[in-house]
């Protein structure tokens, strides 16, 4: 065959070879179909780098739960667990513990009214559990003062208040 016909053929073959070469270097060895689905749609849904699963498993856990606080703040937890606020996680108000008390050494104390208003601002919503919570109108109920000045956030017992 004549040269001008073959040249583009070689050129395109070279490009294909180059792409395959680059691909073999760039694409990680653990890339492929991992796991089979009953419907056989394996290529569609389970084609990936296997290491990505472990990457996500290694992600740092930050919220530790009430049991963890109990190790050191035993009294606080006991007080809280005997109150109407026992269903609330400590970290909902104090932020994630991460490696507290090593890092961070101490957790935030949020005395803002907004924290309490998340649940206690009056919203007259029939058909929602919100309507069942004890509610106040933030503009009427001691405006400008921190809720924690009068209420104990860990045990907000109205009967204990003078």
């Amino acid at each position, binding site marked *: 065959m004549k040269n001008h016909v073959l040249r583009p053929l070689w050129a395109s073959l070279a490009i294909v070879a180059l792409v395959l070469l680059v691909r073999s270097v760039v694409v990680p060895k653990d890339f492929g179909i991992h796991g*089979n689905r009953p419907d056989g749609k394996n290529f569609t849904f*389970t084609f990936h780098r296997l290491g990505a699963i472990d990457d996500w498993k290694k992600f740092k856990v930050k919220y530790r739960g009430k049991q963890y606080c109990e190790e050191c703040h035993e009294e606080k937890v006991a007080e809280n667990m005997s109150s109407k606020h026992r269903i609330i*996680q400590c970290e909902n108000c104090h932020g*994630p513990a991460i490696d507290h008390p090593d890092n961070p050494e101490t957790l935030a104390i949020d005395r803002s009214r907004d924290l309490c208003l*998340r649940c206690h601002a009056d*919203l*007259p919503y029939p058909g*929602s559990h919100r309507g069942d919570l004890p509610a106040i109108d933030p503009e009427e109920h001691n405006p400008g003062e921190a809720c924690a000045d009068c209420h104990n956030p860990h045990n907000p017992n109205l009967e204990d208040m003078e």
Partner: protein
Amino acid sequence: MSCSRRDFLRRSIKGGIAASLPLSAFKFLSPAQAKSLVRESGLRWVFLVDTTKCVGCGLCVKACKLENEVPYDVPVTRTWVERYVVTKDGKFHADSPMGGRDGFTEQKIDEQEIPPEEIAKAFFVPKLCNQCENPACVQVCPVGATFQTPEGVVLVDRTWCIGCAYCIMACPYGARFFHPVYRVAEKCTFCYHRISKGMKTACVQACPFGARQIGNFKDENDPVTKTILTQRVAVLKDEYGTKPQVYYIGLDSNVR
């Protein structure tokens, strides 16, 4: 370099056999064999949202953002809470300021004041990725950067995602977004790092009212599985055929 006809034919046949091998290997598996390979983990994570228990405190959204390092003050989030207010004249209003991160503390909705006596019903609906059985977002990924784990969770490979955003467009639930720091597609992972250690997801743990629950659909004694199988539950946008795996109790037809 030259290529004889014989060489060409020989190579084509070899190539053809090589390409068809993996396909035929799957096709001839008996159903029993296939079943033994499939999801051998015995795990299928599913989520149950009881909208009647939600009070709209937004503590789940806060916990999710901090647990999963989603930039806190950027209006993107992996899970969010929507508020619906239906008035007696049949109109409905919905909002989700900052995804409900700071809860709902005002009666104003969408800058609009609605007098309590006009409200027919009002409620909150937490939303998150549905970890679909047939995830459209995975189907459209051009590079294989998003995939389904054997436990049914859809993950994004951050080292491999090119940020083309096809998946963000493909998700019927709007559950995906662009991560402003890593510059890749981002989505709820059912807190894969927590559930694979036997913990609850951050949002489930944060919810004081039990409005969110996670369970294993392969375990028939799991309370979540029992509820899904024995009570009236619904899923969002069933008609899309993605087979979403977040089930809702108390869903309203106004919720889309």
